[in-house]
């Protein structure tokens, strides 16, 4: 078992153990209904976390995604209210905007050689401000097509609903897995995470790759915004504050190393589901404060950071022993 796969395996084991604990206490939790809800409720987070995984694998960070999701919701609601365009056209326009927004941040990061933290922090405020400019208030979405999207589902055995947005999330994860692990672009992302200088020496087009990475994250944030607006059927410019941090937490709990260069997109899905599972447990329990979610997530994060550090140490010691 290599240091590369261990965090992923740890993630999966922790998820299964957590599920087992939940099941022992509330047998009803092992049903396709709960699983279907888990996917639906966390669809927006899963989608944006896939983009975040690619960014973090490259050694970067994207703090703008929460604001971009909020902007997306407001943009869709306002466009549907004021223009009469078909939702699909609005979605296409939105994805073009958020992708271009991400690409611009990637370009700035590369050209100015600025830390992604600062550039995407600026992006975070910009997107939040842009959402406010469109509307200060919550805008409901009243659109028959939306009802269709919201109610589209596949009925799993056991009456569980695999909703459309849950499927979109699973497809996003699958797409992210292919892109990260099976394409030249993905290898370049890992190369950047391993070391920019070395990557450049090996022939990575650093500028192009950086732009594509943040464009991908912007696209995923836009898609997440669409899914979230379907999920809530409304929009609010102040929504989703801190979602970027939830996404980062999901990526890290999913076993991706925060400094980049190692991790799996599939792990991020497990990370998202683990976080969702904690929430579901609290709902089932009924008496626990929802703040316990935060506490458990905090502890899980700490655990994974310690695990990564420990693995690194072990790796160094093993190599020193071999030398």
């Amino acid at each position, binding site marked *: 078992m*290599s*240091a*590369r796969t261990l965090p992923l395996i740890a993630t999966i084991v922790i998820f299964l153990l957590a599920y087992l604990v939940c099941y022992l206490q509330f047998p009803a939790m092992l049903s396709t209904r709960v699983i279907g809800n888990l996917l639906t409720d966390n669809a927006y987070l899963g989608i944006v976390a896939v983009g975040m995984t690619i960014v973090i694998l490259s050694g970067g960070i994207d703090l703008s995604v929460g604001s971009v999701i909020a902007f997306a919701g407001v943009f869709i609601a306002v466009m549907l209210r004021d223009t009469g365009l078909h939702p699909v056209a609005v979605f296409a326009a939105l994805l073009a905007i958020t992708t271009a927004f991400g690409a611009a941040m990637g370009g700035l990061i590369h050209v100015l050689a600025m830390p992604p933290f600062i550039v995407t922090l600026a992006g975070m405020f910009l997107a939040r401000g842009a959402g406010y400019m469109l509307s200060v208030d919550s805008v409901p979405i009243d659109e028959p097509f939306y009802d269709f999207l919201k109610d589209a589902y596949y009925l799993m055995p056991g009456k569980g609903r695999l909703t459309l947005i849950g499927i979109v999330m699973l497809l996003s994860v699958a797409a992210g897995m*292919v892109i990260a692990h*099976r*394409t*030249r672009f993905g*290898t370049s992302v*890992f*190369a950047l*995470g*391993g*070391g920019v200088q*070395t*990557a450049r*020496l*090996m*022939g*990575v087009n650093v500028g192009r790759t950086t732009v594509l990475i943040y464009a991908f994250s912007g696209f995923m944030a836009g898609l997440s915004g669409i899914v979230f607006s379907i999920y809530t059927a409304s929009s609010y410019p102040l929504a989703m504050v801190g979602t970027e941090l939830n996404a980062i937490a999901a990526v890290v709990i999913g076993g991706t190393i925060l400094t980049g*260069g*190692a991790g799996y997109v599939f792990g991020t899905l497990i990370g998202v589901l683990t976080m969702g599972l904690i929430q579901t447990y609290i709902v089932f329990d009924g008496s626990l404060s929802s703040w316990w979610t935060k506490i458990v997530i905090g502890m899980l994060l700490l655990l994974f950071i310690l695990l990564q550090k420990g693995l690194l140490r072990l*790796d160094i010691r093993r*190599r020193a022993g*071999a*030398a």
Partner: protein
Amino acid sequence: MLLTIRSLTKTFPGTLALDAVDFDLAAGEAHALLGENGAGKSTLIKCLTGAYARDSGNLHLDGAPISPASTLEAQELGIGTVYQEVNLLPNLTVAENLTFGRQPVRFGMIGQRAMRRQAEELLSGYGLDVDVRRDLGSYSVAVQQIVAIARAVALSGKVLILDEPTASLDARETEMLFDVMRKLRDRGLGVVFISHFLDQVYEIADRVTVLRNGKRIVTEETAGLDRLRLIEHMLGRELEAQTAEGAQQPAEPADPSARELHFEGIGRRGKIEPFDLSVGRGEVVGLAGLLGSGRTETAEVLFGVHPAQVGTARAPEGALDLSSPRAAIAAGFGFAPEDRKTDGIVADLSVRENIALALQARRGWSRPLPRAEQNRLADEYIRRLDIRTSDAEKAVGDLSGGNQQKVVLARWLAMNPRFLILDEPTRGIDVGAHAEILRLIEEVTRRDGMSVLVISSELEELVAVADRVIVVRDRSHVAEFTGADIAPDRIMRAIAAPDVAAPDEEAA
């Protein structure tokens, strides 16, 4: 000739890094490039691989003029480089590293099996037994080096440049690497090999080129080159003229009882074998040896940069703690490292601030050094050391190399240490400043009774300044000379041993 370089010149602000250097590389040849630090080896390589733009000179590869503007372009022309720090990605698999940029793709997706096959093909013939699907980082440095070589050869295939490839390998791994080098040479590649391990040069290289101070000194067949001659070329010394000068040194009787600092059995695994050293008040001890022989390592162990694992240090008042630079400074030690640009000065701070730095560090942050005191110190040392600066507030980075070195010296002198270690104090500075620094060393030892350890590859410098010279070879202290015995030819013989044995001088 596969590769010819004619009158290659490269200047950096203030220094002539390469001075009309000629270099030839034949196909099927392993050519060693030798020289001390600052001789111009890496500058030559960087000009050749396009990492630096040369000022003038011609490069020809296979008879055609080339002018690579980047390492990638050089790679495409056929010149591949493997640096000491492996320039591959440990977080990718061996196969990904080998095929990077040329992965077999079908419908936009990398064919895993095809990539694996391609990687295994590339590695065949290198005698490696590795699973290409595993992370590169899970293999030893030697394997990583060979994978890097395999990649460079696959991409370039004409000239292979190896920059100190054996620096972090053990004997068995080095042998493995040499086998690979021999195979590649026999396949008709030209291999340029930079190393400072002379044994390895004699083992693998067909020809040797020696650089010194940016000039090509000599290119010779290794087989016909005497080891002592080679070291002469590297250190720049004609033996004949020397004996007389050495005798001029005042023979100072070394009285061990008067010695102030005693180091017994100090050493660190992989850095320097345990050694004994006693230093007297006001004594200047010289440390001679080739680059990588253990001279800088000695200084680093004494100053706690890499603390000693065994041994004790004693002063008249008792045992000394040298477990960290901080502890060493508290014990009254000072260390001016060799590479002042990265280790010595803080380029953006002013002359005054740089001089006050160490003193302030010793006082602690809660007791700031008064500004008036700082000014007084700065003015005093600018005057005493003749630091050429418009005023004390000028950023050190704007000064010339010699003046930067003086600022580093001033910093330690301001501490008034009892034991000052100077690693190559005159490296890269002009002749005038050179003499001044030597004069200064003499002044602080004679007048203030400071003890100084000087590390230098310039033997004249050691002969001129040191009361005692210790020779380091293969990471251990092998010889010691005092008084009239301090002569460049004797030192050089001791450095060159074992081939050129001079047993009567090994009276350490």
